[in-house]
């Protein structure tokens, strides 16, 4: 019911959640320059934009939402290199696709997404779009698209690739087929100009704009510590919050022994941090296990996480007990997701941290 209402309103959802964050200025589309003196951390950007929803479609196993906003600058990440993608004069629109499991509503951060735009069967544009992280929009895929004309109607096909992360629990065997969701989209500059655009007084401060309420569309907030199975524990390193839990191995894990699921999320908004390289070592009773790289996985109970099986109790020493074990967590590769403003300097040089299991 809610979803239907949401779609019916055309849903210029704006940024009501941001009231109080900053002063509302004119709806200028002159995007202010990147702030000087950005901290090497999550920070409040100098401005924030809303978005308009095009629609939600179900295709194959996926629910796909398509939304848009003004063309954006963003930063791509390759290893530890960060490269800015500036907006170009020809850019018409920033298109965003959010993909989640139609059954559980869980966001799928690691599907590959491409967007194809056609008009009357003729190709207008097609791009492989990047996995992105944005403070108000959370976990999504997006890119700027050029060549759209004001007032024209287009068909936008969002092509979802199979998920690249390991699937465990009830997700084992799922999400291994691609699917395409198709939307009708009218590019109307006047409608786009009405999308909220605010400059923020707090720009540059450490912190983050709150997630924008998007109705039925998930933003990719990781499950709360209490909502994870097992006895979840937490730690913090830089702007990453870790929650770890040890459970019986879920379906899809062949090795026996307890299964460690580590769920890194952003400080402040708690968004999933996907596509990282993370390694851990386990220390207990003076012995330490060899360092192990965790495997990226998606699970309906554990959410998107980084997992491995642990040596059985006792295997590391006669009296080793899980309660006394200390997990040391190292980020080997920072999250390989493109960053919207306020995230582009964060999650690099994350100190190794420990937590007690």
């Amino acid at each position, binding site marked *: 019911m809610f979803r239907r209402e949401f779609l019916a309103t055309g849903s210029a959802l704006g940024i009501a959640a941001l009231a109080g964050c900053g002063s509302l200025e004119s709806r200028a589309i002159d995007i202010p320059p990147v702030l000087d003196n950005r901290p090497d951390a999550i920070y409040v950007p100098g401005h924030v934009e809303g978005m308009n929803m095009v629609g939600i479609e179900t295709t194959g196993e996926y629910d796909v939402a398509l939304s848009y906003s003004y063309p954006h600058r963003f930063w*791509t990440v*390759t*290893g530890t*290199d960060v*490269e800015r*993608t500036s907006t170009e004069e020809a850019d018409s629109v920033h298109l965003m696709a959010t993909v989640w499991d139609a059954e559980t509503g869980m966001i799928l951060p690691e*599907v*590959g997404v*491409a967007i*194809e735009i056609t008009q009357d069967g*003729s*190709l*207008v*544009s*097609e*791009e*492989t779009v*990047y*996995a992105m992280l944005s403070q108000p929009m959370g976990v999504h895929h997006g890119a700027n698209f050029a060549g759209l004309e004001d007032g024209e109607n287009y068909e936008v096909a969002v*092509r979802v*690739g*199979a998920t*690249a992360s390991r699937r465990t629990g009830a997700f084992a065997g799922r999400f*291994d087929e*691609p*699917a*395409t969701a198709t939307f009708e989209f009218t590019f109307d500059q006047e409608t786009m100009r009405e999308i909220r655009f605010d400059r923020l007084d707090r720009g540059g401060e450490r912190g983050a704009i709150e997630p924008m309420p998007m109705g039925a569309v998930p933003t990719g907030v990781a499950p709360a510590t209490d909502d994870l199975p097992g006895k979840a524990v937490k730690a913090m390193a830089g702007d990453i919050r870790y929650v770890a839990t040890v459970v019986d191995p879920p379906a899809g894990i062949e090795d026996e022994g307890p299964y460690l699921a580590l769920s890194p999320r952003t400080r402040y908004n708690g968004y999933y941090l996907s*596509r*990282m*390289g993370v390694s851990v070592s386990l220390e207990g009773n003076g012995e330490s296990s060899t360092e192990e790289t965790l*495997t*990226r996985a998606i699970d309906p109970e554990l959410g998107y996480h980084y997992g491995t099986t642990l040596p059985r109790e006792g295997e590391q020493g006669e009296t080793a007990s899980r309660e006394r074990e200390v997990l040391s967590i190292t980020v080997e*590769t920072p*999250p*390989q997701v493109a960053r919207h403003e306020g995230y582009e300097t964060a999650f690099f040089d994350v100190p190794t941290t420990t937590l007690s299991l």
Partner: protein
Amino acid sequence: MEARPEYDRRQLLKAAVATGGVAALSACLDVTDEPVPTGVDDPETLPERQHAWNDRVRSDEHGNVALPRHQSLLYLTLDGDGPPTDADREVVRDALRTLDRAYERSNEGLIYSIAYSPSYFERFEASLPDGIDLPSPRRLSPFEEPEFDTQDALLHLASDRADVILAAEAALRGDRDEVNGVTLDAPLTDAMPVADRRSGFVGPGMPADRQDVAGIPDGDPVPEAAPLFMGFEAGFRGNQATEDYVTIESGRFAGGTTKHVSRLRQRLEDWYGEQDFEQRVAELFSPAHAEAGLVEGVGENLGSDSGLTPEMIEKVREHASEFGRVGHAQKAARANRDEDGNVRLLRRHVESTDGDVAALHFPSLQRGISAFEDVRKAMNGTDLTDEPAIRQRVNNGILEYIFTTHRGNFLVPPRRLRVLPRPRPA
């Protein structure tokens, strides 16, 4: 205004094969009047292997084969559901023999092959011999949803002369009854109507001349010397299977081969806009090529192979973690060598601007289709995506820029069986 005959001629010829049809042909003939070498009196004297093109087309000084500059792919379908009739066979036989007599089998005349799909062989009660590796086309990556080409046959025409392609097509379609001085009794399309036509081109200067299409960014980024839109040479002798190697050696179809043909749309905005030359080299060849500066310009310094060493192929995983990128050639090569180090695929891809969209037509010849499928899977690099910088399509060779729209599989029979063959020919 001053007349610019040379410019106009170039403009006209550049669009002729892509446009196709009788009007393009007559416009083409207005500006081309050099004679075309004629064919043989007795088609039986031509070689058995339809796919033996290499010694009949140009090669460069390094022995790399230069494919004919103009090409056309005619996808043909028989009417009805059953097997072809004797009358159909007569039409096809006569049409092909007419082409053999009309044109020298070379890049200066016309070189062609006809191939048949699994759907075609399903028209018969008998099935193909077990040794023939010809599955129906299928999805070959975790992110593509191509259309499958299940037409009955594929007639692939190639020539350095645009007017030859167009004249041959006009005759085959019944738009003219004579081709290079030889009369055609009945058009091929009486038996097999054209279900789809795709055109292609390849060779230095041609992509640069045709870069004003969707998929290539403004600013003419494609170098004049490049034979392909991505700006580099390809198909080096050392990285291609030989025609002998891809030939089916025994059985009823001995002398034939299999052919996979895909169409890949190219979207090169980010290729030319976001990536610099070194990054393009890293993504097309390997990060080691970029680091050592092995590729100059369009790769004219490379000679007869791509410079890919067994060490680079082996180190793809190290490259993934060290450079955050892996190369297309490097990945694909992992499956494109047999135990003895022989290359398994003979790739004959050409560019296309059909529908004013930059695309590749990618015919690949191999003894069995599974060889192609293996190489494509290696090219997907899915096994490398556990390195977080390597994503399903980003930093993963050239997957970000190419979009597979069509796939089809075909059997190229030897010449003696080229006319609507039965699955168990005598």
